[in-house]
């Protein structure tokens, strides 16, 4: 662990990623309190104003302040990330640990299903789930989370199989530890590193998918200040108000970039043999 941390703090991409993610968390925590405006307040006389000292990022087609909406949207972004990755982690993680630890027919059935689902791109799985559940922000988080379950199940199963054969697991079982105890104490704690990497790298994927779903009108619904959904009006007013395109897009890029850099740095630090350029 010490060696891992040592490698981590020497990588510049780790620091850039950490700063970007930290910035997002900071804005989400204190931003809404510091921006006095209401992200839903409309003002018809102020509609489609270009950026000015009064409205730093301009106003949209209802005269709402874009900067205020971006700041409030950061909370939605974090919530989408945590909820969807949480679903993938809990469901996929349980499936993976149980499949790896129990083996037998359970393993065959679960991994068979996982293999079928992995053949399809996650965004299409998410779309199919939204087709069943219906559009909306909550359903988007569920859909994006479930779409990531197969990937989590596979990684966690592989890590479980790897740990299961180690001597300390054998020792714990020989000492009479129950299956539940061994899974929780010995396997659970030893597959943490690959799972941390997986979770960090799933965040940007989840955020990009949710933003895309918001943009095509299946995710967050107006007037929610979700960054992807905010770009819908940007498209409709591209000629009259091009500034509407920049702010939500750059906010998404910086956030996703932050998680990507952080995740790559963690992956390289935990597994120096698998160094990706």
């Amino acid at each position, binding site marked *: 662990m010490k060696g891992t941390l040592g490698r981590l703090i020497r990588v510049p991409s780790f620091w850039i990623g950490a700063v970007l993610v930290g910035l997002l968390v900071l804005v989400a925590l204190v931003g809404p309190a510091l921006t006095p405006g209401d992200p839903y307040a409309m003002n018809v006389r102020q509609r489609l104003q270009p950026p000015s000292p009064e409205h730093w990022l301009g106003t949209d087609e209802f005269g709402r302040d874009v900067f205020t909406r971006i700041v409030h949207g950061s909370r939605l972004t974090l919530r989408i990330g945590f909820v969807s990755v949480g679903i993938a982690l809990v469901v996929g993680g349980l499936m993976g640990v149980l499949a790896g630890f129990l083996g037998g027919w359970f393993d065959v059935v679960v991994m068979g299903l996982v293999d079928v689902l992995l*053949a399809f791109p996650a965004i299409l799985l998410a*779309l199919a789930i939204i*087709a069943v559940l219906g559009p909306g922000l909550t359903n988007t988080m569920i859909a994006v989370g479930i779409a990531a379950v197969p990937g989590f199940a596979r990684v966690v199963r592989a890590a479980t199989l790897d740990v299961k054969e180690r001597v300390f697991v054998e020792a714990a079982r020989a000492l009479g530890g129950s299956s539940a105890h061994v899974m929780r104490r010995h396997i659970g704690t030893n597959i943490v590193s690959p799972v941390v990497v997986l979770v960090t790298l799933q965040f*940007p994927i989840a955020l990009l998918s949710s933003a895309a779903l918001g943009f095509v009108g299946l995710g967050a619904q107006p007037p929610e200040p979700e960054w992807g959904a905010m770009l819908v009006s940007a498209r409709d007013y591209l000629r009259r108000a091009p500034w509407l*395109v920049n702010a939500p897009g750059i906010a998404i*890029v910086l956030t*996703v*970039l932050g998680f990507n850099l952080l995740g790559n740095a963690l992956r390289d630090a935990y597994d120096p043999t698998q160094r990706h*350029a």
Partner: protein
Amino acid sequence: MLFAITVLVFLMQVLLPGDPVDIMTLGQPVDAATRAGLRRELGLDLPVHEQYLSYLGGLVRGDLGRSVRTRRPVMEEIRTRYPNTLRLAAASMAIAILIGVLTGVLAAVYRDTLIDLVVSTLATLGLSVPAFWLGLILIFQFGVTWQLLPVMGFDSWRHLILPASTLGLILAAAISRMVRSSLLDVLRLDYVRTAKAKGLNAQHVLWRHAMANALIPVITIVGLQVGAVLGGAFIIEVVFAFPGIGELAIRAIQYRDFPLIQGVTLVVALTTVAANLLVDVLYGVVNPQIQFS
């Protein structure tokens, strides 16, 4: 696999909340007789396993039912749009491979120089940019500001340029990284040094000797991209109002048009399976170590 897909696609209909009849009648109150008639027409009065059998029977005859909204046969809707999506996906893939391989090779050959830094930075950024946002930026620059290219619909090949570039540039990022790292691994190997030592031309060693082996992981990532290009096309089609099955599917989901949703899901699932199969075969061609039994 095919069986599993038909079951899953069929189950979507069973799992759909709400009565399809309500959706068809747009929530207007209808009398019991009309309601029963509609249920019979849709086969909803049968037990679930018989519904599945009649669904399968329809599939065999190429009958996917009718769109609830337009009342046109689903098969017809898909047939007019499917080739457009394939064209968009193929064009995107070509752009992605071209740019990805070129920049990846450049970065590997000139490693740790400014070229490498620029390529790597752009690739990292490319993996963080939402495709639909890049699409909006390209529309603004090429369609609105410079008025060079059409940005909506699909009337000529020129309509393909912007959407295919959007998707291609995004996908090129992952390919470029993979080409760079796998080429760097290969360039270190003894046989490359031998080839150089016996005086072969550097270009020849790079493209014939090194690339032959570096291509294998690249094909893996390109194979994974086949799914991504379809998923990406769904979103990009909406950005450019491009008449493909992605745009069709997303409208179908908005209108809860379930026969259409099922039809598109089935076609996309089959396409993905076929594409994966193609990649496996290609694998065998490039890597003689893999034998098909």
